């Protein structure tokens, strides 16, 4: 009796682990072979808009007063449905058309207040409706490449125009006034955190160089997967620093379409996880951990 119980338990756990071992490779294979991997980036891009917009909708007294809570919830469901349908070859184009409805009726009317994330989504996602199979279209992929290249160079130019990066001022400002993650480099500079500091300057110049180089390389048509991997790494790093994962997930998803790489299952799962984490904010989670550790 004594010996049979552990034996049975071992047997059961073996079966469970065998099932698990066979389940995940099968899921992975089905995901790749069905082509969902190719269409997942657009689905994730649409989901990122939902995660970016819906919390703002329900928190905005203006928006709630104008539309009422129920219509806002219905439009959010519409975006979610569109994200799910975007993953299927049969319905992907319809999904983009569905996405356009909340974009026109809820997002665009507040055009003066919407975040840059949403602007980028509006410049990119609805255009997919022009293509029956957007995931196979060279033209759509070129359009996204050119758009992202232009956006990176615009972000670089705006920082030069503001004059707050070459001197490290803005990094110092974040170090002194930002959220927990934005203060991660503040230990490098002592004294007045907004005063001159060579480390803040170096970080500022690095960000400028990164945005300019990526923008130029995208426009030149560089198609290396190593470049994609490095860029995803940078985006995630920047996302952690700025505590802004939403915009990064959108960029990563669009880059996966640009490079015709699709979105591996692990990256799709990571993206969803990051969007959920973003709801709570990384800084809040870090603060929580630190408060328990302290």
């Amino acid at each position: 009796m004594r010996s049979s119980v552990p034996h049975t338990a071992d047997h059961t756990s073996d079966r469970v682990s065998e099932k698990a071992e066979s389940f995940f490779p099968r899921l992975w294979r089905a995901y790749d072979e069905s082509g969902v991997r190719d269409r997942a980036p657009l689905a994730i891009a649409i989901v990122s808009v939902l995660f970016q917009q819906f919390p703002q909708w329900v928190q905005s007294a203006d928006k709630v007063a104008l539309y009422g809570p129920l219509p806002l919830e219905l439009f959010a469901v519409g975006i979610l449905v569109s994200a799910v349908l975007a993953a299927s070859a049969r319905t992907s184009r319809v999904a983009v058309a569905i996405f356009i409805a909340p974009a026109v009726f809820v997002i665009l009317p507040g055009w003066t207040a919407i975040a840059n994330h949403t602007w980028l989504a509006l410049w990119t996602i609805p255009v997919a409706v022009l293509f029956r199979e957007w995931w196979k279209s060279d033209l759509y992929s070129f359009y996204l490449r050119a758009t992202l290249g232009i956006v990176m160079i615009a972000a670089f130019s705006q920082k030069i125009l503001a004059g707050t990066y070459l001197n490290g001022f803005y990094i110092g400002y974040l170090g002194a006034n930002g959220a927990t993650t934005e203060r991660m480099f503040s230990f490098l500079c002592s004294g007045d955190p907004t005063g001159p500091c060579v480390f803040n300057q170096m970080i500022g110049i690095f960000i400028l160089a990164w945005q300019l180089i990526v923008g130029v390389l995208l426009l030149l048509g560089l198609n290396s997967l190593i470049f994609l991997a490095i860029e995803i790494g940078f985006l995630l790093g920047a996302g952690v620093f700025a505590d802004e994962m939403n915009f990064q997930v959108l960029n990563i998803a669009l880059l996966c379409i640009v490079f015709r790489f699709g979105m591996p299952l692990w990256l799709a799962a990571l993206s969803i996880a990051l969007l959920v984490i973003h709801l709570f904010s990384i800084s809040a989670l870090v603060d929580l951990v630190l408060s328990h550790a302290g």
Partner: protein
Amino acid sequence: MLDNIDIRKWIIAGLLILHIAWLGNHMRWVANGEIDSWKLGGYAMYTGPRPEVRLRVYLENRPDTPILVKKGSRYYLATYFTNIERAFRCADVPAAALLAFFDENRGLIGSNLAFIYSDQRVVGDPPSIKRGMQGMVIVTWQDTQTFTYTNRFCGNEHIASATLPEGLFATLP
């Protein structure tokens, strides 16, 4: 059918040109201090502090006690489609917003008011971040129905008058 038509190339080219033009114009607005750089799709977030626009309304005879204007009130909704959160820093507050304000605050009809807007900006060299006045609207009543309002934003001054609608005037206590 649509897949075979080359018009898509023209649409793509048009969108790219439009996007570049929009970004160029955005930079011009930012350089002139006319807009909130975080907004309007110019990708100029994280170049300066979030402006965090603040509105305080003061009575002429009680300058120490600001009146609260709630978000979601018709004063804000009047500019929802054109300038919510004052992304256009230099734009005038329209008569429709002021009329909506008095409709929701009928007890203030006849009181001279100042609507003061402030925001955070990077100023000076070496740079620093300060909250400063973005602009104001001065409301002066001419009689029980008509008021003059003076918009002062970005060094410009525009004076205009507005009259309460008949319906609103009729319901006054």
